[in-house]
């Protein structure tokens, strides 16, 4: 079977869950090799091996952290040129998409973005995409060069397949463009004890109906009772009630949890684009004609300030 390069998404060596999903998908179409860029490879190798990485390519160079996208694209392209993999899988993060885009141009290879599934097919990896605000499913494959596929979080359930990876340090010759865009400062986002939006099994979101930053506690309390992540509509984010990193929708995060609870959200197409593929959808809205009710498995027409606290109380009672 051919080698499949998997670009590792990590924070200082802590491997993020989507990478484990990519390694799991990669085993369906070949033998996974992880590509680790930046600091902390030692800490990551064991985890990568546990999920089936046969090899770990490590590029530990300052450029990777100090400049935007291009050094990572340089590294991935250079490794791909010498390894001639059967495919390259990249996480569908902002960086991942752009790294994939540049490597595709450089290698003259086709690019498929935001796959929600990858399987082995007659003509190489077959992908499934969910498009047009998740109203269509598209099956596609790459026809030229090395298939480069960016994969959305939650595309697969991570499965262990323990291996002891060979670790190969790679020294990259960076292009002149690598140092073109300097990251002059970074500010870490506030850490929360709640699960990450893309990884959570349950998401509880609030919209304009929440009517104020101070009221979001009503949403948070239900989320905490269920062990859920907190989401928000763009209206709530634009109003400054909740941070943008929690926005669900076309220009925020696209989630696909087991359960999505929308409170005080009308259900605009751009919001639906980010939550329509959730397994079970529930809404609380005081307007019985709100379009969100067309999507729901269960809905309550009512005031969220009455329904949500009662829901929280009842959940805690039943636990």
């Amino acid at each position: 079977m051919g080698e499949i390069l998997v670009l590792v998404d990590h924070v200082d060596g802590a491997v993020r869950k989507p990478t484990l999903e990519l390694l799991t998908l990669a085993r369906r179409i070949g033998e996974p090799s992880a590509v680790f860029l930046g600091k902390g490879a030692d800490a990551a190798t064991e985890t990568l091996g546990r999920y089936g990485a046969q090899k770990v390519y490590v590029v530990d160079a300052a450029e990777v952290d100090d400049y935007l996208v291009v050094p990572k694209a340089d590294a991935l392209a250079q490794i791909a040129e010498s390894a001639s993999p059967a495919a390259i899988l990249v996480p569908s993060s902002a960086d991942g998409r752009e790294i994939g885009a540049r490597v595709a141009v450089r290698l003259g290879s086709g690019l498929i973005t935001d796959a929600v599934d990858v399987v082995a097919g007659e003509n190489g990896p077959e992908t499934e995409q969910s498009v047009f605000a998740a109203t269509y499913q598209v099956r596609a494959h790459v026809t030229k060069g090395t298939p480069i596929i960016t994969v959305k979080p939650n595309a697969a359930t991570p499965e262990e397949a323990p291996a002891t990876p060979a670790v190969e340090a790679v020294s990259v010759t960076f292009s002149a463009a690598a140092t073109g865009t300097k990251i002059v400062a970074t500010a870490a986002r506030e850490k929360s004890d709640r699960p990450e939006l893309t990884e959570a099994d349950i998401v509880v979101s609030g919209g304009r109906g929440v009517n104020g930053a101070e009221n979001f506690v009503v949403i948070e309390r239900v989320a905490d009772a269920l062990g859920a992540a907190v989401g928000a509509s763009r209206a709530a984010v634009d109003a400054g009630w909740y941070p943008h990193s929690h926005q669900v929708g076309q220009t925020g995060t696209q989630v696909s949890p087991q359960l999505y609870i929308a409170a005080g959200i009308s259900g605009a197409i751009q919001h639906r684009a980010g939550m329509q593929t959730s397994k079970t959808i529930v809404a609380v809205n005081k307007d019985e004609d709100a379009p969100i009710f067309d999507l729901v498995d269960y809905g309550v027409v009512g005031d969220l300030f009455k329904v949500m606290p009662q829901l929280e109380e009842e959940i805690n009672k039943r636990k």
Partner: protein
Amino acid sequence: MKIVVCVKYVPDATADRGFNEDGTTDRESVDSLLSELDEYAIEQALQIVESGVEAEITYLTVGPDDAREALRKALAMGGDKAIHVSDDDIQGSDALGTSLILAKAIEKAGFDLVVCGMASTDGAMGVLPAMIAERLGVPQVTYLDEVSVEGGVVKGRREGDVASETVEASLPAVISVTDRTGEARFPSFKGIMAAKKKPVEELDLDDLEIDSDEVGLSASWSTVDAATARPARTKGEVVTDEGEGGVQLAAFLAAKKFI
């Protein structure tokens, strides 16, 4: 200096979008318009000029005949002129093909700054700015929530994957801006009238010295095998809260084993 703003003409996201049999986007049965996310790119280009940077703004679109409407709307918001690249052989181009056409057209127009939207509202890949920068060999400064240009340097703030980042690059550069950069202006009546007199240059593949077998559906680097409508979600039970709504909802969640 020269600013080129890339704008895409897309099927209306609020209508029922779909596909043709060959897997290309159905542009017949749905009205199209200027991609809403590109309005933010136009707005930022106009604000850069209003901030005191002396520049000429050119809009660029690659698309069918009626894509000119997107250019007219952009010109009505402000700016100086436009380029429309259209050719029967372009239909069905993928991201690799489209980025090649855009890069060639930008080179031909001349540029110091290229401004793009964060993603189109149809393909929504969010990759063209990076591809254009790669092909032009200039820095990319993408997904910006805030942007400013001063002394030949573009600076911005973006929400990176794990942290908020301040980034900068020297011009020439390609940038993309998000829907958090601030609402776009509406074209004024005066703007709409003025737009009618602004020049729109029509180019085809020959003008850009691109071979017709380099782009279009047949040259595509990837292919769609099937496109199927997802079954519409079936509406479940909706109850009206008469004092027990939260309890009823909890019972539903418990039955589904979420509690």
